[in-house]
């Protein structure tokens, strides 16, 4: 069912009981490079929408069988169809009805007869939004576990950034560069793939979302995009599991006389700015802010501190004493004017 149109053209459904309107709209849209199908009333429209995949619907309001409102209502309730953008087509004197439709979830409106320039602009904007949403869906599926992805897809997620309270984790492999230099490129890539598989399992299993992978390092977020009250605890549990998995992985590697790895994990909690960012060609779920920087600094600090898991004060408070952590000497971290309280979480708990 999934289509990935380029934002400039799509497969469109024109719903109108009046043939003149259908012909005219259809012609305009075809001239703009879209492929167009038609329905003469609301029921036909729903039947077609369930039978094939469309990128956008142009919907008339007053129609026999099912009218525009009823179609809109059914579309927004249908998980399969609710993400298809709907543009209402109406005459100039129907503004009240248009407002009602937009409140019901329609994306935009166009007056009839269509002005080709306006038509092009509105359709283009809607298709681009839809395309971006489709990209996000795909990304969500890659970054998150099936459960998280499903939850996001059912609850819906918003474009645009917002402040969220979350826990951010950075993790990387110690001395990876020298490991990579000491073995064949094929072994290095295999090692990274094994490592990522294990880390994704540990992170996803606790509701985290991996949103960045750079070389041997990764960044994960807990508590966003799906909110959870216990994100600090989830992140630390996941870090403990990551270390446990690395331990098991090393035992296997040692048995096969292959290189062993050590990881460092830094975790910080607090307010982050989170959202989907993207251009036409690439989109990703991003978190930025002080909390993110702190987590990255803590991860770097693990090398000096000699502890594989370091967490900040907020994360420690979020554990509510359920997981043991030992306070270390406060440290001066790069980019911070004041010393920061840090806690080590001993592995093997």
């Amino acid at each position, binding site marked *: 069912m999934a289509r990935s149109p380029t934002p400039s053209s799509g497969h469109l459904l024109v719903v109108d009981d*009046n043939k003149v309107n259908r012909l005219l709209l259809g012609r305009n849209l075809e001239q703009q490079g879209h492929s167009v199908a038609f329905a003469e009333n609301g029921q036909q429209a729903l039947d077609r929408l369930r039978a094939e995949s469309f990128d956008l619907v142009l919907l008339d309001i007053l129609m026999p069988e099912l009218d525009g409102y009823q179609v809109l209502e059914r579309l927004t309730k249908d998980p399969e169809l609710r993400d298809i953008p709907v543009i209402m087509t109406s005459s100039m004197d129907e503004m009240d009805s248009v407002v009602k439709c937009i409140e019901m979830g329609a994306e935009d409106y166009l007056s*009839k007869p269509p002005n080709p320039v306006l038509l092009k602009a509105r359709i283009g904007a809607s298709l681009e939004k839809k395309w971006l949403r489709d990209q996000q869906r795909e990304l969500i599926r890659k970054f998150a576990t099936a459960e998280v992805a499903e939850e996001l897809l059912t609850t819906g997620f918003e474009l645009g950034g917002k402040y969220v309270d979350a826990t951010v984790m950075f993790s990387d492999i110690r001395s990876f560069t020298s490991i990579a230099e000491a073995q064949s490129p094929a072994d290095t890539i295999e090692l990274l793939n094994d490592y990522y598989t294990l880390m994704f399992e540990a992170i996803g299993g606790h509701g985290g979302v991996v949103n960045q992978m750079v070389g041997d390092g990764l960044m994960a977020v807990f508590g966003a995009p799906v909110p959870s009250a216990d994100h600090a605890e989830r992140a630390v549990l996941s870090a403990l599991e990551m270390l446990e998995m690395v331990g098991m992985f090393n035992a296997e590697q040692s048995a096969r006389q292959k290189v062993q790895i050590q990881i460092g994990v830094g975790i910080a909690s607090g307010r982050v700015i989170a959202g989907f960012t993207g251009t036409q060609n690439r989109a990703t779920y991003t978190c930025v802010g002080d909390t993110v920087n702190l987590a990255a600094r803590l991860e770097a600090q693990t090398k000096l501190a000699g502890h594989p898991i370091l967490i900040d004060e907020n994360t420690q408070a979020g554990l509510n004493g359920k997981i043991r952590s030992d306070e270390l000497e406060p440290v001066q971290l790069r980019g911070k004017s004041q010393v920061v309280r840090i806690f080590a979480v001993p592995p093997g708990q």
Partner: protein
Amino acid sequence: MQPGLIDQAALDSLLATTDREFVGELIDAYLEDSPGLIAAMLRALAEANATEFTRAAHSLKSSSASLGAVSLSDLAKELEHLGKDSKLTGAASKLEQLAGLFEQVKTTLEEFKRGS
């Protein structure tokens, strides 16, 4: 072409953005469907079905406007509003007027199609 019946500018702009063949197709569709809409309005009036009356008037209003049949579109709009307000009692004479106007629009559009 009878003045006021069809807004020449609307037809010209249609011709400019499409072509003569398509405008011909559009006119055919309009002449095919509109009598049905007028009949539906008559029927709805007889049955005092304001919803159906409003819908048919609305449809005729919008396709008439697309082809530049401005006065017909305006009259259909008036009827649509009567239907919306459930004031069908005063609609009969206006509907008769609309049916007459449609015949004139039809003649004009047919002439246009023949290229006169």
